[in-house]
């Protein structure tokens, strides 16, 4: 096992003869093929059963190709730049060209290469470089890029299909309903395409979105974006549970990369899901032609502002009651340690349940949601302060689910209505996107024939 490697370790021995991007390429150079393979297997969870220190493949890079897109079960990196884009074109070929260009650039950047083939410091002297250059001395930093398509990608405001995608919009890809106490801001909602860039270095994540946005100019424009830091969930058993801005461990009960059956059941859209309609669909609603989404998932994003100041004035008793876990170890209040299953029937003095039935852990638990689980991938965010001197901070909640209508929507309705924690939360941003499957192993990207994310949607 490789101990946690610092960036310096990766940059210490560039391959002799490497001319450009010494530090970024050196990552691959010292490791050789064996460690590249290690990086690949890490993405599918080779480290089952281990806890910290986190495994850090020397390459610090993940492959773009695979049955599923990276950035979902990949061990959650520490930093996020999330952006959504609106398409400016009506031309289907323009969209495919954009996805091709993005996929090629994503492939390169995830390997620690510049976004373009010439790089930031070469190319025509009188032209702008094809990479912006701020990651030139950094390695791939575990960058992953994940792409999803929103309802508005398929259908315009009048309900007419776009880009010739008649009938291809999954019936489950609906704008999320209004939830109690939503305080959504238009400028933080929706978007035709969502791009999630995660990395262990904020500069690498920002660089990725910046260069994709650049490639999109004229075809798509950024609608809104969000920076995140401090992953607030754990997507692999190799990771310890981090803390959110309330100071509590977050994501203890997440679906993990090492649970293949749970992933099939709760995260990945299965082939038999094709044509699925919501449970409340009427018989006249046609079944969609959405087999293209098999192997993909649905991405829910919610910008959840925390009322930090009032939380900080609440007693430890209230904080633990609201959460249903101890602040120290994250153990459920029914006893045990962090990973002990909560016992909601256990009572204490006066036969009152040790875990409040309206606590966050009680209401979010699969047992209160028909067995539904989510793969959460949230990040803390702090966007400075509002005009009243209050921190504009909270949780940028991201989760991946197989069926948003059965998994996320009922759970969020329950939480927004009854969760004691809701008193300290307000949802200010929102969106839902269908995340297509990954590219088959061995796919080549780039050029006019390269494989691209979303290819199954346009070509099958």
């Amino acid at each position, binding site marked *: 096992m490789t101990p946690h490697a610092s960036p310096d370790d990766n940059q210490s021995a560039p391959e002799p003869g490497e001319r450009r991007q010494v530090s970024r390429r050196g990552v691959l150079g010292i490791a050789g093929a064996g460690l590249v393979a290690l990086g690949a297997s890490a993405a599918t969870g080779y480290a089952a059963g281990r806890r910290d220190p986190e495994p850090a493949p020397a390459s610090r890079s993940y492959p773009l190709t695979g049955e599923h897109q990276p950035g979902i079960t990949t061990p959650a990196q520490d930093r996020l730049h999330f952006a959504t884009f609106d398409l400016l074109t009506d031309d289907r070929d323009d969209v495919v060209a954009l996805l091709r260009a993005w996929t090629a650039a994503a492939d390169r950047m995830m390997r620690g290469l510049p976004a373009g083939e010439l790089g930031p410091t070469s190319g025509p002297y009188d032209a702008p470089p094809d990479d912006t250059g701020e990651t030139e001395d950094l390695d791939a930093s575990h960058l992953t890029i994940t792409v999803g398509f929103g309802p508005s990608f398929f259908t315009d405001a009048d309900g007419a299909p776009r880009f010739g995608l008649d009938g291809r919009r999954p019936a489950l890809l609906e704008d999320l309903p209004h939830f109690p106490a939503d305080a959504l801001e238009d400028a933080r909602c929706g978007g035709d395409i969502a791009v999630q860039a995660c990395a262990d270095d904020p500069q690498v994540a920002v660089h990725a979105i910046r260069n994709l946005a650049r490639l999109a100019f004229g075809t798509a424009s950024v609608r809104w974006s969000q920076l995140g830091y401090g992953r607030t969930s754990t997507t692999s058993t190799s990771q310890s549970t981090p803390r959110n801005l309330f100071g509590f461990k977050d994501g203890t009960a997440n679906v993990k990369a090492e649970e293949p059956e749970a992933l099939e059941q709760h995260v990945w859209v299965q082939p038999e899901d094709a044509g699925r309609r919501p449970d409340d669909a009427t018989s006249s609603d046609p079944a969609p032609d959405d087999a293209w989404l098999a192997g993909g998932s649905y991405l829910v994003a919610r910008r959840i502002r925390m009322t930090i100041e009032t939380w900080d*004035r609440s007693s430890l008793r209230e904080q633990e009651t609201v959460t249903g876990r101890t602040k120290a170890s994250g153990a*459920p209040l029914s006893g045990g340690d962090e990973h002990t299953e909560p016992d909601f029937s256990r009572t204490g003095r006066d036969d009152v349940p*040790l875990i409040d039935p309206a606590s966050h852990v009680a209401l979010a638990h699969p047992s209160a949601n028909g067995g539904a689980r989510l793969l959460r991938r949230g990040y803390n965010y702090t966007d400075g302060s509002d005009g009243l001197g209050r921190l504009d901070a909270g949780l940028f909640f991201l989760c991946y689910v197989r069926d948003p209508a059965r998994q996320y929507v009922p759970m969020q309705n329950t939480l927004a209505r009854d969760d004691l924690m809701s008193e300290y939360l307000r949802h200010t941003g929102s969106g839902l996107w269908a995340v297509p499957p990954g590219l088959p192993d061995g796919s080549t990207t780039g050029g006019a024939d390269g494989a691209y994310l979303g290819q199954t949607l346009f070509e099958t």
Partner: protein
Amino acid sequence: MSPTTLRPARPLALTAAALATVLALAACTDNSAPESSADGSGPSTLTVTSTADECTVSAPEAPSGNVVFSVTNAGDDVTEFYLLAEDGLRIVSEVENIGPGLTRDLVLTAKPGSYVTACKPGMVGDGIRSDFTVTDSGTDVAPTGALADQITAATTNYVAYVKDQTEQLLTGTQDFVDAYTSGDDDTARALYASTRVHWERIEPVAESFGDLDPRMDLREADLEEGQEWTGWHLLEKDLWQPTAEANGGTEYVALTPEQRTQYADQLLADTTELNDRVHTADFAEGIDAASIGNGAKGLLDEVATGKVTGEEEIWSHTDLWDFQANVDGAKVAYDGLRDVVLAQDADLAEDLDTQFAEIQTLLDAQRSGDGFVLYTDLTPAQVKELADSVNALGEPLSRLTAAVVL
């Protein structure tokens, strides 16, 4: 509101100690003496291990002053830990509901004397007891007289206050509803804010009734999809009808006379129900010093969350009436407990006195006629000033409960 605001009443134990601010703890201690900070001014920390048949306290004595018992439940049952007076009967302090495997701290300021410690696995029986001594460290331990009477009086007075406010709320709501259903919108508008102050003064109490609160006080933004909207803010919107632009782009449709009667009748019925409930013996028994203290804090949280941002009264803009009423309610709660706070923590009392006066000065500057200017008339600088004063008051107010709970 705070989930701890209204919990079942527990007997108010007479004690020689008060909960002190929770302090950073040392991880473990040796078996002879409690661990203390290097300069001797920090708390003495003892560890307690509770199992099915043992209650191991890391030391048999501690110096007077702040003492922390870090209680770990190493058994399979839920456990409790008590510090009892020398007679073994009077509870000095306690920590309950410790699940298996969990550690909870009991923090208190202890006076010199003889005591008894007890673990109570399974929460039944006399518990597993040992003698415990608090030696005289020379540390000045805050005087703690017989405060139980003051707290009893404060509780009685607060219950009376809540009853009085709901009675006034009921009377005012009757007048408001009469004007509204008869189509006298000017009178209804004039009565709206001045009636709601009786609700806002006791908001955490009203909110403790989980079925009534959403029916009576839900804002439009808080609705679940498909949920029917009822209560004060529905009528508010109908009295201050928005333009299409302010209504999400759709033309506002006024309520019909039949709908007006239906929703007004329901508001009146719910108010009557609220009034009935706070007049029951169960309600009075549920009020204790902790619920009053937490209620005061909860009122300031209400101001910080909705009033200071103008979101509560989005159509009438009468947020400052609510703001004042929330502060009134917090002030009444504090005034009832003020003698106790003075005895336990005079600095906290002084801080609270100062901050209540400051916030009142700012609110008084916005008075207009019998009420206040509209929220929309405030400048951003004035809103910021009010928000700052809410934080300045909210911070010490959040320590009120710990100071009065014995």
